[in-house]
């Protein structure tokens, strides 16, 4: 349990604009151990999406170090980053990001193509994952034929299919109603509790964040709170009252 999946030190990120460099992350320090369920919160513009993209190896930091599973992400090339995204990380996005023209089954099996898994095995694994999220009967549907909550379940199945150590979920309930949001969060909690998958979740809703055990609060590119959820809930309530 003590094994560190994520170890981040003095992480800076600047965006170059016409008006000069704009700093977004200003020296972030964070470590996540295996099996943790972590929620990152913060107001718009606090840098949480940028932080998430860097965690997901979709974007690279300007300076600082990021060790994922003990590997220095900053020193990897494009192909090695792609392999990390494929085999270590599973993504769940706010907008689901399924391929609209492919069947549910093919969507879930897609990451396995880039791993070089043979077709029969791809479909078998995809169907296992679909069963896990309760959508086995929908495997031949298209994404636009099922509800938003079901689409997000498909996305979760896709994130799980390569058996990643880490799931990164960027506002996974942002497009869903309250009841469906609860179902999705219950699924995440179950994956964390039963399979021991490390989950990092970005959200701005505190009733979503309560499913996590630990809270990281970002403001203006810095971590302003990092600790157990219980205390945070109190401070959060104070600040909103």
């Amino acid at each position, binding site marked *: 349990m003590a094994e560190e999946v994520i170890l981040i030190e003095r992480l800076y990120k600047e965006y170059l604009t016409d008006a000069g460099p704009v700093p977004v992350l200003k020296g972030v320090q964070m470590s996540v151990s295996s099996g943790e369920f972590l929620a990152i919160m913060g107001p718009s513009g606090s840098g949480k999406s940028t932080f998430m*993209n860097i965690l*997901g190896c*979709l*974007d690279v930091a300007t300076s600082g170090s990021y060790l994922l599973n003990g590997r220095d992400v900053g020193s990897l090339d*494009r*192909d090695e980053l*792609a*392999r990390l*995204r*494929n*085999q270590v990380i599973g*993504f769940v996005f706010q907008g689901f*990001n*399924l*391929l609209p*023209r*492919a069947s549910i089954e*093919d969507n879930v099996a*897609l*990451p396995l*193509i*880039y*791993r*070089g898994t043979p*077709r029969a095995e791809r479909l078998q694994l995809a169907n296992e994952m679909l069963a896990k999220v309760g959508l086995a009967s929908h495997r031949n549907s298209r994404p636009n034929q099922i509800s938003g909550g079901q689409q997000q379940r498909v996305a979760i199945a*896709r994130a799980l299919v*390569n058996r990643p150590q880490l799931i990164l979920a960027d506002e996974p309930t942002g497009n869903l109603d309250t009841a469906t949001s609860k179902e999705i969060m219950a699924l995440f909690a179950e994956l964390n509790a039963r399979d021991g998958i490390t989950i990092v979740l970005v959200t701005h809703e505190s009733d979503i964040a309560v499913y996590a055990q630990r809270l990281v609060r970002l403001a203006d590119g810095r971590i302003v709170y990092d600790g157990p959820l219980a205390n945070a809930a109190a401070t959060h309530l104070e600040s909103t009252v």
Partner: protein
Amino acid sequence: MIWAMFGEAWAAMGANRLRTFLTMLGMVIGVGAVILMLAVGQGAQQQVQASIASMGSNLFIILSGSVTSGGVRMGGGATPTLTLLDAQAIEELPSVAAVAPSSPGTAQMVYGPNNWSTQVIGTTPSFLTVRDWRLEEGFPFTDSDIRSATRVALLGRTVAQNLFGDEDPVGKTIRIKNGPYVVLGVLAGKGQSLDGRDQDDTVIVPVTTAQRKLFGSQFVGTVRFIMVQAESAEAMPAVEKSMNELLRQRHRIRDGADSDFTVRNLTAVANTAAETAEVMSLMLGAIASVSLLVGGIGIMNIMLVSVTERTREIGIRMAIGACGRDILLQFLLEAIIISVIGCLIGVGLGVGGALIVNKASGMSVVITIGSIVMSFVVAATVGIFFGWYPARKAAGMKPIDALRYQ
């Protein structure tokens, strides 16, 4: 891996069928046009070459020329100046393969109830060698027929058909200008000459028979023209030179005076015709290739639009682990599949079109494996070439930018 990418490319193409079809159409028309044009061009070329082959190879024809007498120039062929003895002398020259002195004329011939007027050529047995003319049946006359001026004849196919119909002419006797002639053989069909005459509408008799018994001659022993075959194409200039020298000497023509004969190189004329046909064939092919190029640019155009339109898809694929090579392969495969399938359909249409042209207009067409293979190679190359840039563009995208693209 490659099969999985193939499947992804195929699925993407199936997702937008009309666009895929229209892109393919550019390729189909391009390849079809190239195959059709090459077929027609090579058909024309083959026709010309067949005509040339029917004429015989490495040929000269020596014609009686202008005779100048007391300052009056008589014009070409007005007086027969060439003799059988000239022909014999030419035969002695080095590199000369065969010599056929010839006296043509026109005569009416009769067999049973049928009669027919045609060209009669009085010549020697080597005429058949020179013209590369085989006998369909029977056998040729010989030098002894020449010496004794026997009344024998070889019939061209047209003549044989008109006089005999289905009957076998060999051994029968026909009447030419009221003289009886035994038909020794029937010549194989040669078809049209370069200038469109029916070469089979001819009767061949021994030259001496023609001179003494058929047409008579103002100047005994003279012939209208002599056909000469050189041993090889390379020997032709030397043969031409030595023939000129020999004949000027024999005809006692002073240095500087005009020759009383003309030597023409028939093969050179024919080769010009063949070259013209070849150039035409090349030009047709070149023009058709332009449409192939335009088809290729069409592929690039659509692929570029497609890459832009599917930026988000590319982002998703990259986010879940596709590396640049995977994306490159997918788009490249799409371009290649489009061009190869387009090419297959194009080959079908081109071959079909060529057969229709052949049926409808009677134009001869030649479809070679070479032209099909060439179109295939060109189409695949065009697909790779014009698919490469858009595929590179897709593969080079940053995952985060592609994913955020709206």
